[in-house]
């Protein structure tokens, strides 16, 4: 950055007057879009979370901290928050374990194969989450493929759906490509010569991986885990379809509060709590990752 600044200031005297940087205007459309459809609704929601919910009607314009007191004081919500973060964590770990070898393979095959594998990896994203969840229902259900097979062999009926297991299967399936793509991007930038150099210096393939490739792929691992965790925390459709109402996660509660209970202030406060806690977790995580990636700071 210092070099760039120096280069810019070195050129500056040649320009007679400061001209307006018209290029900046190119980002105005997206800024307007985000302002209208993201910032304003969000600010409105923050505002809403401090209003009073009357017995009749949506809200009255009167300041209260009562919604937050309820959201944070009720053990029921804490249990659901814990569930939400726990399922997201498990999903993240499983996608990491499954996605890393996949990414490694994609990053190391010839260019021709890589294109094909990337298309295969992304192709599930072409099908809507709802359709895919129904697909899982056919496989995991009480009379689904797996149970039919198990029962035909005289096995017991397995409970694969409408529980945490079903949700995690669905989440892993949907978010695996995000993890694998993040890691593959990182791995592709690592020259195979680095591992060769480590091998030549006496490292077994396993040690060469752990000492060289793994630490160098951490930026992709961090990006992938962040992405999958955030997506999993906020996922709604999969828990609804594959968990029914047996397993509750925060987005389901928030939607119920907003639409079914018609309690916009409390729903908004719950959304803010989920946002705040997720942000805090990510902040710690990013701190941690910056420490692990100190070497890459230029």
């Amino acid at each position, binding site marked *: 950055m210092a070099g760039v600044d120096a280069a810019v200031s070195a050129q500056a005297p040649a320009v007679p007057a400061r001209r307006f940087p018209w290029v900046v205007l190119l980002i105005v459309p997206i800024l307007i879009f985000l302002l209208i459809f993201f910032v304003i609704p969000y600010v409105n929601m923050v505002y809403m979370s401090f209003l009073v919910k009357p017995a009749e009607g949506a809200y009255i314009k009167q300041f209260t901290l009562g919604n937050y007191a309820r959201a944070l004081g009720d053990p029921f919500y804490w249990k659901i928050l814990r569930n939400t973060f726990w399922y997201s964590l498990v999903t993240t770990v499983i996608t990491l374990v499954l996605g890393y070898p996949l990414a490694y393979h994609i990053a190391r095959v010839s260019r021709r194969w890589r294109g094909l594998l990337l298309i295969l990896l992304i192709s599930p994203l072409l099908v809507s989450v709802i359709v895919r969840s129904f697909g899982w229902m056919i496989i995991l259900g009480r009379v689904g493929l797996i149970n039919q097979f198990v029962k035909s062999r005289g096995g017991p009926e397995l409970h694969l759906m409408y529980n945490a297991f079903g949700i995690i299967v669905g989440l892993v399936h949907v978010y695996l490509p995000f993890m694998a793509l993040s890691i593959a991007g990182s791995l592709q930038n690592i*020259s195979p*010569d*680095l591992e*060769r*150099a*480590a*091998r*030549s*210096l*006496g*490292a*077994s*393939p396993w*040690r060469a991986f752990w*000492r*060289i490739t793994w*630490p*160098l792929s951490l930026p992709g691992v961090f990006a992938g885990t962040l992405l999958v965790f955030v997506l999993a925390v906020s996922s709604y459709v999969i828990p609804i379809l594959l968990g029914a109402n047996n397993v509750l996660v925060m987005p389901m509660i928030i939607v119920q509060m907003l639409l079914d209970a018609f309690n916009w202030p409390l729903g908004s406060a719950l959304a803010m709590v989920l946002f705040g806690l997720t942000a805090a977790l990510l902040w710690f995580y990013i701190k941690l990752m910056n420490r692990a990636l100190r*070497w*890459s700071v*230029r």
Partner: protein
Amino acid sequence: MASITLRDLTKRFESVVAVNRLSIEIQEGELITLLGPSGCGKTTTLRMIGGFETPNAGEIFFGERPVTWLQPELRNIGIVFQNYALFPHMTVWDNIAFGLEMRRETPAKIRQRVAAILDKVQLSGMERRYSHQLSGGQQQRVALARALVVNPAVLLLDEPLANLDAKLREEMRFYIRHLQREFGITTIYVTHDQAEAMVLADRIVLMKDGRLQQLGSAEDLYRRPHNAWVAEFIGLSNFIPGTVVGRNDGQLSVRTAAGVFACTGEATTGEVVICVRPESLHFGPQHPNRITGVVQERVFLGNLLDYRVEGPDGLRLRVQADPSRQFDPGTSVEVSFAPADAWVVRPSEA
């Protein structure tokens, strides 16, 4: 320290034969270069010696020890890659210490060995830096130090100077030569730059299309090329096609469109090509083989003048002469060359 023997080494990639029955013996402590145009199989050969590619056929020995199927980490080699392949998440110190750690040396010994080699490559004081904080030349020296600190039996260098600017490249050639002599380590150096090969190598392995073309000293390759391709690849040469019409006393008589010339060489019958280096053609009749022609072009190159001369039957000759006498374009000249400088080889196939 070990000699290296390659025996009928062959590597195929799908339908392409990258290395074709290559047999070489490298003496202990010798520095040889694998030289050739890109795609000639030199890097594949180096990778097989390093254990990063498995040959389809043939054998590799370090000394008496067969290593053909050995994993790289068991071969005791040092390798320097074109991009240096320094570990970017490790400091200079940790990069160099890596090989010693893998060999489970004691911390005290690691400290002592790393410090000693840092001193040797003049990088003391740089040990806490990361590779992106080093210049290209410094990275190069870290890579060399990392490879040498483990006392490898064999040092493999894959175009190690290709990413340096011209001036530094020249310096580093001599520096690598100096280090290699000091360590007395058997070294294989891959390059496509013939000047680099000539400066560095005890012997040069010249390859083309996976096949050995010639193995010899720089002087062998320059003065006594095995075939027209070698003569063309190493330095500049004039090629005069002809037919052998007689031989006596080790000299060959070759009939060409420009006359019958007395020559030396290995090809003794049939269709041949006479190779004459531009500096071996002299203006004036002082040598027995003479050609008359007309100067077409003259270029001043500082220490010499570079002429294009057109001889009989469209024969185009390149003549490099010292600038004391000048011939203008259009002048009729006589050029001559000695039989010892007229080297006869078989024409290149195809």
